[in-house]
């Protein structure tokens, strides 16, 4: 067998949707004899194994079985038996576009490439607001990545639709199987640190037909994410967890109530939270959307903090752990970029000096600092405009606004 690509699909008791997926693979525009499909049946109790064994494909198909170790282990298992140079990972509830494999392969020009595909979230009619929100979250994420000046970060890696060379994947020992979730972010983190080049492929499209995400799962997931984020921080001490910092640096009464509650009456708080969840359904029925949004925000905040504190032990430990400043780089490496000669020359300056971090000035006026963030790709000149627009519009406007705009040009 001589294949260039291996498509790895971990699956768990979803024989019907997997079969649909296998059928759709027959239609790939990429030559069928040049890729293999590896199904990893993880703790399947339905007829998945039987279905795959009886399936008569036009492509190379194999199956491995695991006793239910989770998606990260399943993906690693698939990678360990794969023969293609490029590994493509997809989920078992996806509808692949006809060019899916072709578009992934096309971008793998060297071993450092990591290609993230576009997976629009398929929504049913009369969906709940929560599921509309999930779709929105995914689309925003892809929309940002699609921009030419996007600055890639570890959390752009989505395990359900990406490809990587098997050499790079094996060098990093694949996914970390000890994490509760967010193993894709953790792999993304190590990939970027190892110098991988992230790319987004809008044309490597796979509809994500996730029918199980709902409010309850989303909240439970938030708690797991809290725990996992602490695990990741323990593995990578220089990791900066922006989400945790965002929640922990808030100075509001509701936040301290949540924290105190979790510290002293966790089971009561959990019960209150499930009551809040029930209220959200009522709010949605009555279309009280602002109450719904507030409660949605609070509950996600609650479960995330709950997870973080479970992971860290106590609030004090958590706070020190997440908020303590990291000494990530020698401050001598911090440079100054001046905008006064125009944006183009500032961009060239960044490309010439290749700074890890820099302060932005306009003449003598300080605009803002771009810090070194482990887990982000090397900053390049073309990232600058978007950073200025997204983060420093206000500061820049203050410098640009007065005076010169009202000089009469005769």
């Amino acid at each position, binding site marked *: 067998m001589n294949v260039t690509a291996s498509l790895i699909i971990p699956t768990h008791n979803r024989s019907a949707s997997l079969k649909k997926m296998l059928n759709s693979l027959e239609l790939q525009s990429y030559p069928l004899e040049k890729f293999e499909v590896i199904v990893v049946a993880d703790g399947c109790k339905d007829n998945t194994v039987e279905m795959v064994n009886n399936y008569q494909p036009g492509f190379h198909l194999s199956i491995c079985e695991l006793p239910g170790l989770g998606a990260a282990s399943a993906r690693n298992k698939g990678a360990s038996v794969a023969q293609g140079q490029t590994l493509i990972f997809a989920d078992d509830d996806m509808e692949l576009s006809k060019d899916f494999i072709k578009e992934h392969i096309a971008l793998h020009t060297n071993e450092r490439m990591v290609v993230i595909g576009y997976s*629009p979230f398929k*929504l049913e*009619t009369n*969906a709940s*607001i929560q599921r*509309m*929100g999930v*779709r*929105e979250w995914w*689309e925003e994420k892809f*929309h940002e990545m699609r921009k030419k000046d996007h600055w890639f970060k570890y959390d752009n890696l989505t395990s359900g639709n990406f490809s990587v060379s098997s050499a790079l994947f094996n060098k990093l020992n694949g996914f970390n199987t000890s994490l509760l979730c967010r193993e894709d972010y953790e792999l993304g983190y190590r990939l970027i640190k190892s110098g991988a080049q992230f790319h987004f492929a809008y044309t490597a499209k796979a509809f994500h037909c996730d029918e199980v995400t709902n409010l309850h799962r989303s909240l439970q997931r938030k708690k797991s994410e809290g725990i996992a984020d602490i695990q990741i921080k323990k593995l990578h001490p220089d990791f900066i967890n922006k989400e945790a910092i965002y929640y922990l640096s808030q100075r509001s009464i509701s936040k301290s109530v949540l924290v105190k509650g979790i510290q002293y009456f966790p089971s009561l708080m959990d019960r209150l939270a499930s009551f809040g969840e029930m209220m959200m359904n009522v709010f949605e029925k*009555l*279309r*009280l*959307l*602002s109450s719904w*949004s507030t409660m949605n925000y609070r509950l996600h905040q609650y479960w995330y903090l709950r997870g973080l504190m479970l992971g860290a032990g106590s609030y004090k430990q958590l706070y020190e752990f997440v908020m303590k400043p990291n000494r990530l780089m020698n401050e001598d490496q911090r440079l100054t970029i001046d*905008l006064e000669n125009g*944006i*183009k020359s500032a961009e060239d300056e960044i490309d010439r000096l290749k700074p890890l971090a820099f302060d932005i000035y306009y003449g003598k006026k300080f605009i803002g600092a771009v810090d070194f963030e482990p887990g982000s790709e090397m900053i390049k000149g073309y990232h600058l*405009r978007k950073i*200025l*627009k997204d983060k420093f*519009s206000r500061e*820049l*406007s*203050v410098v*640009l*606004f007065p005076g010169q*705009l*009202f000089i*009469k040009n*005769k």
Partner: protein
Amino acid sequence: MPDTIDDLQSYDGAFLLLRYHGSPVGKIILPAKDGKIIIADHLDEIKKAVKKRLKYAAVDHFLFSHQEQQNATSAIRATIAICTRNRTDDLKLCLDALMKLPDRGQEIIVVDNAPSTDSTKKLIEQYPYVRYILENGKGLDIARNRALAEALNEIVVFTDDDAIPDTDWLDNIIRNFDHPLVMCVTGMTMPFELETKAQEEIENYSPFGKGFFRKIFSITRWQPLATGNVGAGANMALRKVLINEIGGFDEALDAGTPTQSGGDHEFFARVLLAGYHIVYDPEAVSWHRHRRTWKEAVNAIHGYGVGVYAFWTRLFFEEKQYSIILFPKHWLLQTQLPNFYRSIFKIKKSYPLSFLLAEFRGCLKGPFAYFKSRKQVNQNLKKQNG
């Protein structure tokens, strides 16, 4: 900016749309003295009018000005649709403006809605690139649905027959569709002329422009039933595929039916309820000719009142959006009563009482108008089906 604005002999003042390198940043009405306005005399007022937006426009210009227009050759094609009825003078102005748009492979169609003469048809014969469609069912929303059915392209851009779009209008609308959840885009509508007191007052009371900042509306950041600020049907675009999911415009609503308006706002509510985005882009500028006489202006305001309550009625009974029941109270207490108070006691910045009364009368009529209109539509449907 010019030093002075001349040739204003017959006017008291001028309405100015202020732009910074092409981007609209503010609007202002300045008084004329001896037939001209000296800009230097009004710098402070102008500064105040552009204060909020100008600094961000300056940032955009600083960052992006020398990048070539990225979306100039956007792959998305559009059909421009004009729904019209017996208004050939206005329509001619509109079509002449559309002829000046750069060619992006767009198609232009005119839906002639239950005309009483063939003057529109004759006018269209002079424009070889414009397709004429006759729609005998009377009603703006019937015409809109016909336009959606006839359009050949993915995006359908609607303009009123009494609106005159800028030359970069189409490009500035289309570029917003690069986000897959954006199903609908509205532009900024400015007054084409303020020749009469009626036009001035209507622009003041119910401006079609909704500010100088781009806004994204969606169910996660906006109450989806409050669509008054989203924009208006005179300057809007949508993806045709949307119709398969949420249905077309409600033919019991808007001009030509007892409900008089509201078809666009009711449609926007359904777009948001389905979880899609609507973008308001103030750079997509179109100039609307308001009704000239006082009587026409009062009728238009009355029509808005009827339309709002009519579309709320539909949302309540047909979309089962029961929380709409809170809106009338809110509008009455927060806006209508204070406006009456200001108007009666002639407090600064008050609106003409006749507008407020007309609107209020319209509101009371709205629900009945909707049921009446609904009945008519159903009867017509029965007739058609034999």
